[in-house]
């Protein structure tokens, strides 16, 4: 599983969802959690953290955001050599197949459909960890 000092970036235009995800992460033992309210400031935060030598270890982003959407944010992060290896999970209320396929093709680490509970988020984090650290998880 991701270490307790992992830096998380939570990106959602709804403050409530940021609070809920932050609360769940804190319950799971994580305390280094930063927030952004859209994909654009989220991408800027990722770039700034990478340049400062303290990159984020995990990004959780909503899909439906008014400025830069989650899928655009994901694609922009994957296009940046400094950010492309960062685990990236998308959150959305849309459970249609077309979204899942597009996100997978863009390189998303995993995908969680709202509504979800703490157990689901924890299971997703474990799956992403296994995907990004195959030797350790085996």
């Amino acid at each position: 599983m991701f270490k307790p000092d992992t830096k998380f970036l939570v990106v959602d235009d709804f403050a409530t969802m940021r609070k809920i995800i932050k609360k769940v992460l804190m319950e799971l033992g994580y305390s280094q959690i930063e927030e952004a309210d859209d994909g654009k400031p989220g991408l800027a935060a990722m770039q700034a953290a990478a340049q400062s030598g303290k990159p984020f270890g995990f990004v959780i982003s909503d899909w439906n955001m008014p400025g830069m959407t989650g899928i655009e944010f994901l694609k922009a992060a994957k296009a940046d050599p400094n950010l492309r290896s960062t685990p990236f999970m998308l959150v959305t209320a849309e459970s249609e197949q077309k979204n899942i396929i597009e996100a997978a093709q863009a390189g998303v680490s995993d995908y969680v459909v709202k509504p979800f509970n703490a157990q689901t988020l924890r299971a997703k984090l474990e799956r992403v960890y296994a995907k990004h650290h195959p030797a350790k998880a085996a």
Partner: protein
Amino acid sequence: MGAAHKIEINPLLDKNFLNAFVDGVVKTLSLMAGTDVKPLGPKIETKFESRGEVAGMVGMVAGNMKGTLTISYTQNSIFKILENMLGEKYTELTPDVTDAVGEMTNQIYGTAKTTLNQMGYQFEMAIPTVIQGKFYISQYHSGTTLVIPFQITGTENIFFVEVTVQV
């Protein structure tokens, strides 16, 4: 000979249509807020009536069917849900409260929409609006409203899901 006439049935009379919203509410509040709720007796009204002190509203469009989903909360019911959801006590209708009402409306509609679309409807995602106080929807006065009251388990707190449809 006229063109083939499509028979239109009001979806509010379809038990599965009602259940999609009931399940959406129960699932969303259970997962996101750890709050158990139970539906009380639904009823059909010919006129939309606003209830509660804060409501999330979202337009529903599927083909030639137009409607509105409104989820109205009394202050006590939304404060209780938010306390369970965020671990914070609220005593006023602050921007945090209205933000949460909007997000829950989004999730409840998203969950119901997925079920409804699996049943053959083609509802699109839409952006919710949050309203405080009493209001009246003039453009839907000729529609029919399905009202489903919900009670938060272990409390007297009630909130209302209202689906107004014009076909």
